[in-house]
């Protein structure tokens, strides 16, 4: 239960971090809440650890045009209590309440969660739900990857060697958009057996736009485009019918957290609750206005 020896490097700028990453067997250390357990079990034994916790360029939550830019080094607890996110994207705080436990939320980072790419984790699901893109830096320059192209398989992303995730950029939702996130886990803080996120914008009882994303039910978080299309223009009371067969085309995993059959039963229930909750919130926003 002790990690193998490694060389420790602590850059303070992004340029230094990229230079330190130019090595055959280097790993970035952000919050360390997934990497360090894997090192303690010696599932991974990197030769060099690049501790990016002191790179200021990776921090901060700011408005940037029609989007909010969340630095990759933002801790889950910081995101949960950030006033800008509370105003623009209240679903973030709702999702963060499901991330592990207090001490882990204090350390774990958005960038770490995205790069670890656990299919049941909260940040990957939010990224896909909110049409966010991921800002990536390397020695060659900068690029941006849409959330739905970033997550390839469990623990596999589109990130190349020598690249660092610097931020996630979330477009500002249209005014009046209600959002919701919920998940089912065996115990508080455990990995989700299944999770659902939704956004709904209503005009009266008519759904103008709905988005639905699921986590923990496939190799990567996914949007349910057919249900979204069916809901556009529908009455909010049609949500239950629209999601009744949500699990039909899915082949969720059988694992220690939940059986595939249980997940198949959870999917329409979580989808309906997330969409109905988001619709209710959209309706409340319309009344406040």
């Amino acid at each position, binding site marked *: *239960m*002790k*990690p*193998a*020896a*490694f*060389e*420790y490097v*602590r850059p303070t700028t992004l340029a230094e971090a990229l230079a330190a990453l130019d090595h055959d067997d280097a790993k970035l*250390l952000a919050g*360390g*809440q997934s990497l*360090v*357990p894997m090192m*303690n*079990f010696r599932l991974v034994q990197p030769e060099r*650890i690049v*501790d990016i*916790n002191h790179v200021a360029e990776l921090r901060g939550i700011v408005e940037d045009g029609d989007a909010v830019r969340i630095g990759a080094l933002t801790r889950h*607890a910081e995101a949960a209590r950030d006033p800008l996110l509370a105003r623009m994207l209240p679903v973030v705080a709702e999702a963060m309440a499901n991330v*592990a*436990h*207090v*001490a*882990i939320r*204090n*350390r774990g980072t958005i960038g770490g969660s995205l790069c670890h790419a656990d299919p049941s984790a909260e940040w990957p699901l939010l990224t896909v739900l909110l049409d966010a893109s991921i800002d990536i830096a390397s020695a060659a320059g900068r690029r941006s990857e849409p959330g739905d192209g970033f997550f390839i398989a469990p623990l596999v992303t589109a990130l190349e060697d020598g690249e660092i995730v610097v931020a996630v950029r979330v477009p500002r939702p249209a005014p009046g958009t209600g959002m919701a996130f919920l998940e089912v886990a065996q*115990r*508080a*803080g455990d990995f989700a057996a299944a999770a659902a996120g939704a956004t709904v914008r209503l005009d009266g009882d008519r759904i103008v736009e709905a988005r639905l994303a699921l986590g923990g039910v496939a190799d990567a978080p996914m949007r349910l485009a057919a249900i979204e299309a069916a809901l556009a223009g529908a009455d909010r009371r049609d949500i239950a019918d629209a999601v009744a067969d949500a699990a039909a085309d899915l082949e969720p995993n059988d694992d220690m957290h939940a059986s595939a059959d249980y997940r198949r039963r959870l999917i329409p229930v979580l989808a309906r609750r997330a969409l109905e909750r988001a619709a209710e919130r959209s309706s409340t926003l319309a009344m406040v206005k």
Partner: protein
Amino acid sequence: MSEIDITLTLNGEEVRARAEPRMLASDFLRDRLRCTGTHVGCEHGVCGACTIRLDGVTARACLLFAAQLDGARVDTVEGLGTVRNLHPIQEAFRRHHALQCGFCTPGFLMTVAEILETHPLRTDEEIRDALSGNLCRCTGYEHIVRAVRDLVDARDGVTA
């Protein structure tokens, strides 16, 4: 791999020691700095026994490397109170019999110190949720919740 110098502020005092970068912060605190109040349980971030405060917020010491403590402010259970002069949190745990074997207690105390500052803890359910990252294998949770309820009432000026 060779040892490096690590300087940190531990419970308000500057201390210095040498360690390999890979040494876990929990081992560094216990074996190099002789602060054995931080307990080592699972060593993979599940049990919460090694909870410390790093730059003011709780963290699992078993998920930190000694090298990361260089330049940091670290608070451990040794900074709370002493046997003759218990901290109010320790006194509440004593009063409510909130420990049996005591192995998990330092981690619980450090978590409680933080959540009293950051969490409303209006209901017992909220207290249980905030404590859910700390495991007690004597399963004495009920008395721990009572101790925290007492501390929350004192914090909020509620009289029984």
